[in-house]
């Protein structure tokens, strides 16, 4: 065991995957020599050479598109898009190709590739550096979307993503890259993609979150000691672990979903719909969502209005508990 941040855990997952499997390559803008603007890939070029770890031109369609070609030709590319806000020029490749090669070729070509991107707000950054764009990836059939919230999961999910035969979008909650450490195994391990994690069991209400907001929920629950909440860290946004969610709702009858993504047509809407479909008659109160507003995420001097904090979570939770059918 070794004490690691999320950032270090991801670095270790990349390192161990590259060590074990020559076909793993890691690249993106500033990923090679410098080791990434967040230094997530630090040390890898030195260890594995410029062929397997390299800097690219500023060209997201080329980054994603070439990864598709590499995956076709026997490599396992793990590419970085510098911020999720800059993933959009590569979005055409993700949607029209990465998600579809297997289906298009009726199984001849599958794409074991990972597209990493730091995401989310709260880091006092410039425009396009704070987006939470889960919906854009989760809506597309053929993609998996994974988001860790702890160092343990970050390493295990990343190793699973690299070994996954399907393309995985891996969003990294940059706000907590270095926020805390956890004792995690030094040897390689996987955390199963498609399974949520029950952070804490509870009987009064279910709270669903992922990424940086899991911690905010945990903090909130330290303030609200009179409510016994079940906290679920979704971990995989798509394909979603509906079963874990539904089982929880059947027990608690109430649900609060917390995410930073824009509210309308956001991920919470899908969760609510699945709950409606599979546990409607267990609901004791209207499902609630506490999310980003439907406005462009503000620059830092206005960002505090947008970012969700534990106090707000506690407030919404109390309101939810007060509601009665």
């Amino acid at each position, binding site marked *: 065991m070794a004490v690691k941040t999320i950032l270090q855990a991801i670095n270790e997952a990349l390192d161990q995957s590259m060590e074990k499997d020559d076909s793993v390559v890691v690249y993106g803008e500033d990923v090679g020599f410098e080791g990434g603007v967040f230094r997530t890939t630090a040390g890898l070029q030195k260890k594995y050479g410029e062929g397997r770890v390299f800097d690219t*031109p500023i060209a997201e369609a*080329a980054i994603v598109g*070439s990864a598709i070609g590499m995956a*076709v030709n*026997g490599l396992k590319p793990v590419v970085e898009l510098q911020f999720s806000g800059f993933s959009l020029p590569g979005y055409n490749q993700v949607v029209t190709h990465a998600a579809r090669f297997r*289906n298009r070729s009726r199984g001849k070509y599958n794409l074991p590739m990972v597209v990493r991107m730091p995401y989310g707000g709260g880091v006092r950054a410039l425009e396009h550096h704070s987006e939470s764009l889960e919906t854009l990836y989760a809506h597309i059939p053929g993609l998996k979307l994974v988001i860790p919230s702890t160092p343990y999961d970050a390493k295990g999910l990343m190793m699973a993503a690299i070994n996954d035969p399907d393309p995985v979008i891996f969003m990294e909650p940059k706000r907590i890259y270095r926020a805390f450490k956890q004792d995690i195994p030094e040897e390689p391990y996987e955390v199963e993609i498609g399974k949520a994690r029950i952070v804490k069991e509870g009987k009064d209400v279910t709270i669903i979150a992922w990424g940086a907001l899991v911690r905010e929920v945990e903090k909130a629950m330290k303030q609200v000691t009179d409510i016994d909440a079940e906290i679920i860290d979704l971990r995989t946004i798509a*394909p979603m672990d509906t079963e874990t969610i539904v089982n929880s709702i059947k027990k608690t009858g109430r649900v609060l979903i917390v995410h930073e993504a824009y509210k309308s047509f956001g991920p919470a809407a899908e969760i609510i719909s699945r709950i409606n479909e599979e546990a409607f008659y267990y609901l004791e109160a209207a499902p609630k969502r506490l999310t980003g507003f439907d406005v462009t995420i503000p620059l830092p001097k206005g960002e505090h209005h947008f970012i969700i904090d534990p106090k707000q979570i506690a407030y919404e939770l109390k309101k939810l508990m007060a509601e009665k059918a």
Partner: protein
Amino acid sequence: MLFEEFDPLKGEMLQILDKNGNIVNDKLVPKIKKETLMKMYKTMVLGRIADVKAVQFQRQGRMLTYAPNHGQEAAQLGSIAAMDDDDWLVLAFRELNAMLYKGVTLEQSYLYWYGNEMGSKYDENVKVLPINVPIGSQINHAAGIAYASKLKGTKEVTIAYIGDGGTSHGEFHEGMSFAAAYDLPMIVVIQNNQWAISTPRKKAIKSKTLAQKAIGYGIPGIQVDGNDPLAMYLAVEKARERASKGEGPTLIEAVTYRMGPHTTSDNPKLYREDKEVDEWAKKDPLIRFKKYLIDKKYWSNKKDEELQEASKKEVLEAFKKVEKTGLVDLEDIFKYTYEKLTPNLKKQLNAYKEYLNEEGAK
């Protein structure tokens, strides 16, 4: 050497066989094995018939849609024939001839245009990517394949095709820039067929040649008579040599013409003159290639008649098989989304099966 001699800014297009099938550039005639030449020619004949027939089938309501490549055969066959068996072929969507040459079966091709994904499941050893509809994006795939070849140290070279219109797309630019940056073993053939649907190349693109776009990427470019199979062969042969030596990608503009409509849903009468089409008909690659082979005593008119017959039969048989395929199985539209069906997809599939059970097929 070749690429310096035919620097696109000098304004000379590489041609070896003129439209009448006469050698106009004796010292440049590439050494091509008879066997290869005959494979090229036979594919061209088959490709032409398959093309013309596909349009007919479509007019009869038996084929879904089709993008004819009539007129562009030499651009494809001259180039693909200069590649090795082990090389990769990355398609746009108008490359029936290149596909056939490289081992995609006519039946598979037809099945695709018939509207069935199975038509893109080429045989295991066929190193061809499926038809790529989003313009330009295939160039990035080609770059990735070539990167992998280089990293693994194999001898593979990747050849990719794109249309004249496609060169304006950002995806083309990114793929070219990427391939150039790492000196990747890749060849890009622009099939400049003068039109992008209804938009003339001359109006959409300011540069005098498309080959000169290579200069922006710091790589060689060359403009070639795309209806001349020998010139295309030579250009690609030389480009492949560069690629093999680690000297990086080459951009080849094949000047050719789309004789048919853009696809069977298109009506070219709306936007272009018959006169232009007639002019290009005289430059038909098939005419000149046949003449060349007969001159070389590799071929005869009699053999040609037999080949025409045999090819026609092959085409009709392939299409007959395709017409027997019918509809796609329900499971098949679910099965290839991920390696394993997700619980969500299982639910959707089962709910739909329940509906079919209760209400009968749609």
